[in-house]
């Protein structure tokens, strides 16, 4: 539990903070999209580490409610594909879709869409991690 509260939870918060910051910078300056992609990769890693750590805690005797804890973890995972949602607006992606209303985005618009999504997801991931911490601490 000490590893979780001292390392893993702060890691997820830090990753969320960096993701939000990279998102804000990219919103203002789309050329920072490359940095945002690195932050997204780091977020994937942080969420994976979080997931594994909580799973280990649950298996090793923490009496936290399984349904709620796993629900929050699954929600964290479900949010990740929304990072980089701008890829759905590339001309190639739109060309493969018969829907005439499918948005086709310019590169700077793709960067801004990814940035806006990153800010929203960062906030949601931080809240989910906090909820998991609350449950685990209450059960410890």
């Amino acid at each position, binding site marked *: 539990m000490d590893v979780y509260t001292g390392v893993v939870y702060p890691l997820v918060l830090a990753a969320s903070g960096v993701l939000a910051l990279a998102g804000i910078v990219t919103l203002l300056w789309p050329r920072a999209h490359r940095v945002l992609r690195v932050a997204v990769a780091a977020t994937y890693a942080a969420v994976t580490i979080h997931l594994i750590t909580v799973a280990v805690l649950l298996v090793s005797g923490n009496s936290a409610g399984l349904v709620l804890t796993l629900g929050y973890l699954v929600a964290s995972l479900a*949010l990740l594909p929304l990072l980089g949602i701008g890829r759905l607006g590339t001309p190639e992606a739109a060309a493969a879709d018969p829907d005439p209303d499918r948005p086709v985005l310019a590169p700077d618009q793709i960067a801004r869409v990814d940035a*806006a999504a990153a800010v929203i997801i960062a906030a949601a991931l931080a809240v989910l991690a906090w909820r998991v911490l609350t449950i685990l601490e209450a059960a410890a």
Partner: protein
Amino acid sequence: MNPVARIALVVAYAVLGLAALGRSSVQISTKLSEAPVPYLVSGVSALLYTVIAVALWRRWAGVALVGTAIELVGVLTVGTLGYVESSWWPDETVWTGYGSAYGWVPLLLPVIALVLLVRERRARTAPGDTPAPRSAV
């Protein structure tokens, strides 16, 4: 509507829909009899958020407009009733306290979405306007 704003709204509604879906699934499946009204309201809000996210993505402007209007009315009604008739709400919903547990996003989001959707609708119906090219959608 600006495509960046539109997709950002889709993401925001998807996240909120996921949160409401998770909350209402647990509440309805484990303790519905304890507080049926709040838990069913959470379920309705989850459904509404999902429908709005899909409608915004598919450009079903009418569905999105009606959905966000219902959402705003729901947040205001549930938020107000929570203070006026607190005995009706033995537990919280997504819309309790005007969405305070979610950083008031449930209150702000439909307002922003409605402003953008109404502006888009007005721009479309303005006389002499030509339809926007696909790349600018």
